[in-house]
């Protein structure tokens, strides 16, 4: 991975970034408080995508956090504020704002992503493909780790923010998502490829695999918060596969960990996962957490009542 050195941000720029982050968090909190919600269909994965798309007209707002301590680096917490909207039953679009905070360093916005997922087959099959196209404009200070591609390693997360933020990557990312649902289990596999569209860097590759199941396949008759039907558990593995100049999974990072999801009835959905680095290139442990709220039929808010 190449690192460029650019101008160090001024205090005014840093203050502005902090203000933007505060406004976004406040707006999200307000939205969480004001709206009614419902549980989403998604399995408890952080990196892996399943074939579940957002229901048309629904907006899911979520915050995905990742914290870790790279060797020879400061503890970081990366965050992505995500707005996911179901355009059609076969098309979901998603916008992310990405930021991070590093202990003994700084807090900053690191860029944005815009992704679209399309379901080409109109019926359910044993294996359900979904096509994923994403444009991302992120600087290298991003710590959300929403995927691992190429030769990413923990050394990348030890670079001080003032240098990492100067290297901006504009990338196209394509994924082939394959997902199966059988007897309550979900098995999803993602094949990832990524290319910097500004520079003559090679195509980078990665993968993600997830398996999960709700703790209960039946909904109970009574209203309950901590009953099994509100929990899902599973495991997730992901990592890089090198690039066109050097394919393979050794010179890159690999992670594996259990995941758990808790749907609070009429409230948000919480996710948690400790994910363990499987080789020396990986951060020893990443703790991931997420909170998401689904706002149903937000489009109807703007339609005239008949």
């Amino acid at each position, binding site marked *: 991975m190449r690192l460029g050195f650019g101008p160090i941000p001024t205090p005014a720029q840093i203050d502005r970034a902090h203000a933007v982050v505060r406004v976004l968090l406040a707006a999200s909190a307000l939205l969480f408080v004001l709206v009614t919600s*419902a*549980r989403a*269909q*998604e*399995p408890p994965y952080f990196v892996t995508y*399943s*074939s*579940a*798309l957002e*229901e*048309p*007209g*629904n907006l899911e707002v979520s915050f995905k956090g990742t914290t870790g301590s790279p060797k020879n680096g400061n503890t970081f917490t990366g965050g992505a504020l995500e707005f996911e909207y*179901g355009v*059609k*039953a*076969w098309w979901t679009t998603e916008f992310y704002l990405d930021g991070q905070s590093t202990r003994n360093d700084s807090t900053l916005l690191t860029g944005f992503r815009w992704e679209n997922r399309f*379901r080409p087959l*109109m*019926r*359910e099959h044993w294996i*359900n493909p979904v096509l994923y196209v994403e444009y991302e404009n992120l600087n290298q200070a991003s710590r959300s780790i929403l995927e691992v591609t190429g030769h990413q390693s923990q050394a990348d997360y030890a670079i001080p923010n003032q240098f990492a933020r100067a290297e901006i990557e504009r990338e196209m990312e394509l994924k082939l998502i394959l997902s199966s*649902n059988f*007897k*309550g289990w*979900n098995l999803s596999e993602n094949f990832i490829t990524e290319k910097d569209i500004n520079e003559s860097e090679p195509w980078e590759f990665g993968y993600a695999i997830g398996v999960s199941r*709700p703790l209960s*396949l*039946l*909904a*109970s*008759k*009574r*209203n309950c918060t901590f009953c099994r039907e509100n929990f899902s558990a599973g495991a997730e593995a992901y990592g890089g596969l090198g690039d066109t100049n050097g394919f393979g999974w050794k010179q890159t990072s690999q992670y594996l960990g259990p995941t758990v999801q808790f749907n609070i009835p009429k409230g948000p959905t919480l996710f948690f996962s400790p994910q363990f680095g499987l080789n020396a290139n990986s951060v020893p442990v990443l703790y991931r957490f997420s909170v998401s709220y689904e706002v*149903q*039929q937000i489009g*109807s808010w703007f*339609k005239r009542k*008949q």
Partner: protein
Amino acid sequence: MMRMTKTKVDRQARQFRAAVLACALIGCMALADGSWLKKVPADYHSRTNPYAGQADAIAGGGKLFADHCAKCHGADALGTGKKPSLRSDRVQREATEGDIFWLLKNGNLGKGMPTWSSIPEPSRWEIVAYVRSLGLADAAAGANSGEEKKQ
């Protein structure tokens, strides 16, 4: 001569547009909700609900319905806007339980109905049990009007 030809061409163009419009309208009507019923495979059509009529399953299905279905189809399942009623003759009488189960699994993506395949199969049967327990809207309206008359 030229003028007559132009008028004739205009008339033919109008007739052609009207014919296309009529065909499109008929096509849309034919494809309007209910067309999914013809797509259901025979093995699904004949499936029966293992939880049919069970009070616990209906209550559980009611919770799932409130979570996933009510916003589009209405809390009373009578439909909202363009989203169809689930208490119609089509859903309550024409369709078998297997047909509704198939629709929940596959959705009708072209018409805005998502797939619910990530909901486990037993839970989907609970939703079917709940929807069927609601009965026809006319019957409900009739019962209500009867109540009103009594009062």
